[in-house]
């Protein structure tokens, strides 16, 4: 399984987005790629990897998206997204994505950004809440005390509490999960492609079987569609369209991502055979996270229903103008 670590952590398309610094993409992927060996990821489950967090903090990567004037590292929404996709790709056992969202939102609201991992209250269940020093609840930092705690399928902790929650924050976290899934789905495709090329049965790599080739093509398509949907939402948020339209695009992205997880995880495990769902194989680190993320901050059907209701409310004649304004023209 060691060879999986050597697959190059490429940019997941974001390097092509002219406004992301390629050096940032390279740095985050190198740092996470070096650190996130399977045994390290497994050992951190139930909590977080404190050593990894310290490395990320030292590199200034936990405060990207927060203006330098507010004590952050600067950078755009697209820079933040590139980091979140990388965290998803590498199954990073730290609340990097959630913390980046919390920090950016807090800075936008004129709050000081405290040190250490942060979380966002975007529903009754606060993902990563128990390991975060502070929880952003609307326009205030609140202490992280929870009535109940637990972990998701991937051992990522959550806490349940009674917090004020805004639609904006729910949307921001749903987009964050779509971006994590875009990264994780690409990893599942990469791992499966590698396995299909290496595993031989009937005297040849299983990837030579036409049915496996067709599964791989389907998986690649769903991963690309997820990234396209998440990028579309991101571009609309960055373009400052109305909050309604931002939430529509985020809902669409979460719907595409959640659906893709169902398809890709099923096929990835089917192609890997029994080894893929043992604890010794790298694949399950990714698939467990994907199963968790598709449920967090709204399932695909919840968001699809939200999106669909907004479409029927606007009427058929409004559909094409909406479709053609995504992504916004450049």
């Amino acid at each position: 399984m060691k060879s999986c670590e050597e697959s190059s952590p490429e940019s997941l398309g974001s390097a092509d987005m002219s406004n992301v610094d390629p050096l940032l993409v390279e740095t985050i992927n190198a740092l996470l790629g070096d650190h996130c060996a399977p045994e390290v990821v497994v050992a951190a489950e139930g909590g977080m990897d404190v050593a990894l967090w310290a490395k990320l903090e030292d590199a200034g990567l936990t405060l990207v998206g927060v203006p330098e004037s507010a004590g952050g590292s600067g950078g755009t929404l697209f820079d933040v997204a590139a980091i979140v996709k990388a965290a998803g790709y590498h199954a990073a056992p730290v609340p990097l994505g959630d913390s980046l969202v919390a920090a950016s939102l807090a800075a936008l609201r004129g709050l000081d950004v405290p040190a250490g991992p942060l979380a966002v209250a975007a529903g009754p269940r606060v993902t990563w809440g128990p390991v975060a020093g502070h929880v952003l609840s609307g326009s205030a930092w609140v202490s992280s005390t929870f009535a109940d705690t637990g972990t998701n399928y991937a051992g990522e902790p959550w806490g349940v509490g009674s917090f004020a929650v805004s639609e904006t924050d729910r949307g921001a976290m749903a987009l964050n999960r779509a971006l994590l899934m875009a990264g994780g789905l690409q990893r599942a495709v990469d791992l499966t492609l590698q396995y299909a090329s290496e595993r031989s049965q009937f005297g040849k790599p299983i990837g030579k079987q036409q049915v496996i080739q067709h599964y791989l093509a389907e998986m690649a398509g769903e991963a690309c569609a997820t990234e396209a949907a998440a990028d579309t939402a991101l571009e609309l948020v960055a373009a400052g369209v109305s909050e309604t339209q931002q939430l529509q695009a985020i809902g669409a992205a979460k719907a595409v991502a959640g659906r893709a997880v169902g398809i890709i995880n099923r096929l990835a495990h089917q192609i890997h055979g029994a080894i893929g769902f043992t604890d010794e194989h790298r694949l399950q680190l990714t698939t467990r996270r994907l199963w968790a993320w598709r449920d967090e901050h709204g399932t695909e059907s919840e968001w699809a229903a939200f999106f669909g209701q907004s479409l029927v409310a606007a009427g058929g004649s409004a559909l094409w103008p909406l479709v053609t304004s995504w992504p916004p023209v450049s």
Partner: protein
Amino acid sequence: MARLSYPSASLPASTEELRLRIRSFLADEIAAGTFTPRCDTWLGQHSPEFSKKLGANGFLGLSWPKKYGGHERTALDRFVVSEELLALGAPIAAHWVSDRQSGPSILKHGNDRMKEETVPGMAAGEIYFSIGMSEPDAGSDLANIRSTATKVDGGWLLNGTKVWTSQAHKNHYFIVLVRTTPLSEGGGNRHIGMSQFVMDLRVPGCEIRPIRLLTGHHHFNEVVMTDAFVPDYMLLGEEGNGWNQVIGELAFERSGPERYLSTYPLLSALVDAIGPNASNEAAAALGTLVARLTALRKMCISVAVMLDQGKAPITEAALVKDMGTQLEREIGEVARQLVPPGKSPAFDQLVSDSILSAPGFTLRGGTNEILRGIVARELGVR
């Protein structure tokens, strides 16, 4: 490790003026009763009148040289006009193939005389082309074609049979792929020795027989060539280079928005048919379709931008076509379950268009199985 990627791309703001122009043109045409929106119009709804109007209003040959009646705009401008025409279900089958691939192919490979005779007419929406690739024994396996061209004084004599030739009975020409060197002389390489010709479909020796669809509709034909004469200057490109030229043509054929918008008029009608009191289940089904459509459109724009930059995103186009044609079919499947028959004759017509045309979506322009094979090769497993 091999990986497919769609560089994040969007349409330039310069396309907006054209979008508004075609949108208003189409609104006027619908108001005037020129056409009723239908599904799958780019292959089945042939209207020379409408194509001529598009040509006269400057909507065809958008990226072609002005010298040949074009407008010297970009392929992205054509993308915008195409998607507006498809979304409104306009009758565009007459000019579709000539504007999409025959014109570009002739401009790239053709000689001056051929260009002068065909391209301005295509840009005006007056000359229409069909595709002459498939044969009875060469469907997915296109290299298995048997049709031949034999050199004679002043031209070539073409013999053989082409099938699934949409609109050959109404169109003026087809670009036909034939063998100019016998298979036996290719040294085992089946891709050697093929050439493309621009053949007049009304020439003696060309017999066009209808092949009716399961609806009874006639757009498919069998084209039988028996010593059909094609003059020398209608050899397209280089003799023997036909295979490479065809592959280039397929990049245009497979990359467009018609590969996910064939049933868009039904999707749009579905929004109103389920209405503002929709159940969450119905809304979710609709929301999922539109979410997937917008993701595919973003990928398709990425492909269009790559094509515009002179790249050859053949694999990326194949994958979008695979996913898009499945979505086109699903739109019909979802609509028929959410809105039972009898809602309105217009809606029923769109559902019927979608269900009965659906088998073609995932076959035409390369079956989805062939497309996935192309993707697998790019991924390095094939």
